[in-house]
């Protein structure tokens, strides 16, 4: 590894160490220090399929056009940063800002965001990030989501509002002069204020898988900087990021579009995931995939013609499990060979568990 200078050592060992602290069925938590504040923060993460975001992007472009989709993605990306980083309230010294930005980019890069793999500052006020094979945008051709991330990162560390632009599908740039003070989106909920109330084991005679079980058995592979499961790329995200997506799509009146896109995407993926086995085996597989990817522990019951899904240790911060419920909808449609819709989605008061009732659609679309 060689000898680190004091700055690198401080950044790598003290300020940005990342440690997996909990990896049990349904729950993955890693620990990282908040930038500069030297305050440990724990973040719950889960793995999501890249193809779901690609499908969502394609459906959005179809409806509202490329430009508006890019704008939407940019806003979501900028909001991501407020969820990914936890501002300590302390101003970053100017001589450390560039280093902090680069380190933060590295942490995104480890999640497969390779467009942030090659970053440089040109002078004081000019930033370039580039990289091939970036998650999501390698298929959509539009890295606006990540230009939002760059804008968010620069704004957080410099303290004033900075925007970034897409130069091409593999390059993001930003030229900035500090004028307007930047106020981070400080959601009132801490990273782990919700979703952990039922971390204690739920009674079950059957074994649920953890992420490390999937790695142990080679079901999850890590290659070329990205995780893969069953031939699909999966992306680790702080668990409230899908909630951020849902919030912005709901605000734009696009929630139905999101639902339809995700249901279809997961249905299509089911052809590979649930290729063989009877219904019981497929249901066992779906709940083990969910628990292995950190989506909580799923219990499925049939009540009449309804499917009642109870999820414990739900991976949400703001109480919105819609994104995952849409994805699960697609799996269940495939497994049962019928089109279901969400009849109800209820969260417990402490957001630790969710009950989703899926009902067969009366009229097929």
């Amino acid at each position: 590894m060689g000898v680190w200078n004091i700055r690198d050592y401080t950044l790598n060992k003290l300020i940005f160490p990342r440690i997996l602290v909990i990896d049990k069925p349904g729950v993955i938590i890693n620990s990282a220090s908040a930038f500069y504040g030297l305050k440990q923060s724990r973040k719950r993460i889960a793995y999501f399929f890249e193809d779901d975001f690609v499908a969502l992007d394609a459906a959005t472009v179809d409806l509202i056009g490329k430009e508006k989709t890019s704008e939407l993605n940019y806003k979501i990306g900028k909001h991501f940063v407020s969820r990914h980083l936890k501002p300590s309230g302390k101003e970053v010294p100017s001589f450390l800002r560039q280093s902090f930005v680069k380190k933060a980019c590295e942490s995104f890069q480890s999640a497969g965001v390779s467009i942030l793999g090659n970053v440089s500052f040109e002078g004081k006020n000019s930033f370039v990030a580039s990289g091939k094979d970036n998650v999501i945008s390698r298929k959509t051709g539009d890295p606006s989501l990540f230009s939002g991330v760059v804008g968010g990162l620069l704004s957080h560390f410099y303290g004033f509002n900075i925007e970034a632009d897409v130069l091409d599908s593999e390059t993001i740039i930003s030229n900035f002069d500090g004028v307007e003070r930047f106020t981070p989106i400080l959601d009132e909920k801490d990273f782990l204020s919700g979703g952990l109330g039922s971390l204690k084991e739920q009674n079950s005679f059957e074994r649920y898988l953890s992420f490390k079980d999937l790695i142990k058995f080679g079901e999850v592979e890590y290659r070329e900087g990205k995780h893969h499961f069953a031939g699909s790329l999966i992306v680790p995200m702080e668990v409230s990021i899908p909630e951020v997506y849902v919030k912005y799509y709901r605000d734009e009146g696009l929630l139905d579009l999101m639902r339809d896109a995700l249901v279809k995407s997961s249905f299509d993926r089911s052809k590979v995931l649930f290729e063989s086995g009877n219904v019981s085996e497929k249901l066992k597989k779906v709940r083990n995939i969910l628990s292995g990817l950190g989506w909580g522990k799923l219990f499925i019951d049939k009540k009449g013609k309804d499917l009642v899904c109870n999820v414990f240790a739900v991976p949400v911060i703001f109480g919105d499990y819609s994104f995952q419920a849409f994805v699960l909808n697609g799996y269940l449609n495939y497994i049962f060979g019928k089109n279901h819709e969400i009849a109800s989605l209820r969260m417990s008061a402490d957001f630790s568990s969710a009950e989703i009732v899926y009902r067969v659609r009366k009229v097929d679309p």
Partner: protein
Amino acid sequence: MSVKLSKVKRESTGVVGIDKMIQGGLPKGGVFGISGPPGAGKSIFSLQFVLEGARKGDKSVYINLEEPRSNVDNMLAEFGFGEEFLKLEKKGLIVVKCFDYEKYSKISEDLFKQVGEDEKIGRLVVDSFNCFFASGYEFEGKNEFGVRKMITEVFRNFRGKSFTTLLTLEREEKGFGEANYNIHYLVDGLLNLDYLDLGVIERRVFIPKMRWTAQSKEGVGYEIGVDGVAVGEGWEE
């Protein structure tokens, strides 16, 4: 992985394919653990280990700390090797001891001491060793440090003798209200039987630790069939 014979004397496990993963067998005289979730095949493996010792002419002892003898007989009846096992038991080459809860307080002093003093024993199995923690904790009123000290003394006792010990362990990691007293650090080697259920059950054996051995780094598939635990075909040297 090419199987080179090492200078360390080794005991065949009696399980097809596992010996290949550990250069021919468990290092003689060591204390080894076999861990895994319920139903993984730990007890079956341990019976096969005992049988293999008896086949070679070694006196082999199987101690069950949680089940009555009838359960062990039922297990033997399920497998093709059961008859041979019982024949060797009649000849005195296999000794089976089953304990119930009331006798736990005597395990450390009476049983393990007796075993330690019998120079004819070549192999010892304790199934499951987790029950021994309970005995130390409850009957001897020991705190966690005391139990750990007790375990270390037992290990020292086992290692000082000529027999090879296999302990079945119920949990791999601390948690769920049970303590494992860092047993995985104390043993000389660990076999881990595990399974993944993604609709179809896939079983694999992993060997995360084996002193004095260049063990296989990859997990290898296994099955539980009429001959007990067997490592599947397809594992290549």
